[in-house]
């Protein structure tokens, strides 16, 4: 297992390098030029060349990549072309709120989804199942920005329980987390329910009943345990998504976050910031998959055997 862990982590290095090349290149292939944003109207080619030299934009691409990567490895993400502040500081300001929002939303969707999915599967085709699956349908179809607005109207404007917007204190987290978790719970519930129904029809479950084990124990200790394997895979894939995919919700609640920063800097052609944001998301996805793979291996001895 330890052997596998080391190999799996080492395997991330080439992936990281490949991802960094892609992130670096994509931006330089997009049409448009950040210098345009910095130039005063009517400036001549000398002013342009001066600014290009200042940010290293006059160097050949491989050299620019080398400089950037060397900086990244030392923790220097460069300086924003637009705001002229260190990118690391800008990322540092948004990563906290993003992690809080994404982490809470993921935790709540996992927990809520697994519980609701297990309940739905246990009461398959009876009213609790139908009720939960109705909610799931709602959760997977309601657009999150609209749900966010509804929640603001109800809980902030009418009831005044939570702040309308911002990222100050725990109270401001409640509504955005609820907005994201609603869709997340729907997804996890659906996957858990199907996986449990599938697992319950397996041969060995019949034999567990024949052994005289209490049905509740079979459901929780065996069926749910098997059903969690696909759920873990889905959740691991969502880690990266949850960090960067909350753009609309961040907009609705006027929260700072990685997603918003990415979109904003993208529209301004602020290369260093876009690169850093994408890199953070890529790292989140990679760590998510790593976590998922490790959990799979811990849960399933067949996976562990295949690793040797």
């Amino acid at each position, binding site marked *: 297992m330890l052997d596998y862990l080391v190999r799996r982590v080492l395997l991330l290095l080439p992936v990281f390098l490949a991802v960094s090349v892609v992130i670096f290149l994509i931006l330089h292939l997009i049409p448009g030029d950040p210098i345009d944003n910095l130039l005063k109207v009517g400036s001549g080619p000398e002013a342009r060349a001066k600014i290009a030299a200042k940010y290293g934009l006059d160097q050949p691409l491989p050299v620019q990549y080398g400089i950037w990567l060397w900086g990244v490895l030392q923790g220097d993400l460069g300086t924003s072309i637009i705001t002229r502040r260190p990118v690391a500081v800008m990322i540092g300001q948004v990563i906290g709120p993003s992690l809080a929002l994404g982490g809470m939303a993921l935790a709540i969707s996992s927990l809520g989804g697994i519980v609701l999915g297990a309940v739905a599967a246990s009461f398959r085709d009876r009213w609790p199942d139908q009720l939960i699956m109705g909610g799931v349908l709602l959760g997977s179809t309601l657009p999150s920005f609209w749900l966010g607005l509804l929640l603001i109207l109800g809980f902030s404007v009418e009831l005044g329980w939570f702040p309308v917007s911002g990222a100050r204190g725990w109270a401001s987290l409640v509504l955005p987390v609820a907005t994201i978790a609603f869709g997340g719970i729907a997804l996890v519930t659906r996957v858990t329910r199907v996986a449990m129904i599938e697992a319950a029809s397996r*041969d060995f*479950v019949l034999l567990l*009943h024949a*052994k*005289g084990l209490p049905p509740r124990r079979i459901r929780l200790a065996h069926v749910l345990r098997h059903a969690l394997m696909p759920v873990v895979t889905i959740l691991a894939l969502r880690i990266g998504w949850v960090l960067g995919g909350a753009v609309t919700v961040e907009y609705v609640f006027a929260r700072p976050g990685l997603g918003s920063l990415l979109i904003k800097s993208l529209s301004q052609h602020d290369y260093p910031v876009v690169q850093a944001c994408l890199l953070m998301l890529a790292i989140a996805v990679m760590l998510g998959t790593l976590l998922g793979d490790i959990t799979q291996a811990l849960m399933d*001895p*067949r996976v562990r055997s295949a690793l040797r």
Partner: protein
Amino acid sequence: MLLSVENLGVKIGAVQPLEGIGFALDRGEILGLVGESGSGKSLTALACMGLLGLIGGQRLGTVAFDGVVQDEAGLARLRGRKIALITQNPMTALDPVQRVGEQIAVVARLHLGTTPAAARARTLDLMTQLRIPEAAAVADSYPHQLSGGMKQRIVIAMALAGEPELIIADEPTTALDVTVQAQIVQILGQLVRQRGLGLVLITHDMGVVAQVCDRVAVLYAGRLAETREVGDLFSAPRHPYSAALIACIPREGMAPGSLTGIPGAVPSVALYPPGCRFHPRCPRADALCATTPPPQGAFACHHPLEVPHG
């Protein structure tokens, strides 16, 4: 009688795939339950275990254990403790993420109330009795690390762990290599003789039946065709279906190409024919067979085969 089943039937929704099954079994006896696939053998096993709920079925008729008629809750209490099941496919019968020793030990802990250490000792003891080499190492393995024959022994050990009095074995050898099949059948036979267990052996292998069973119940399309002592059945089958099954066993000295099957197939539940359900495939069938179900008894046939003289 250890197990006596009367007028047993199974209803699943609107259809009734099984009806009028009756047989009895005493300690130290092996009852063979034979028939082609789809004749209702496995359903009979599930019904006797009180496990029809899992497939959405409903039991009709009575199942009595040790002379006491049991409802579904009663059967649930007996499951794993007094009545154990061995299923068809050892490849899928074990929980793939649990060590096999633990899967055996849990039965002892649950039904005999033993301590974990005692349950472990009992597990290793059972495994050794079932001729599993290096029992301790095997007990700590996961199912995917073991061969089919080994897994089937684990399943048998699991069945024995609660000290049951009755074992229902649903085609315990079908999924195994021929060489391993013989071992498993031998092990089951020994268990019955040594421990005085009752064994319902479900199989479609008439060779196995001839080897180990005391009595045989032949099932066809959800009904009993014939119930006989094993020697009588093989020397003088009365139901044409039993005779046809016996004719399907390859024998020494048979001319190549002379082995015949039974033409046609078992009808599915929705297509059970009226009258005797075997009549469309029966060489002796006439107009009566097509309309009137045969009388129940040792053999359910309007035109049984004659007993050969001498």
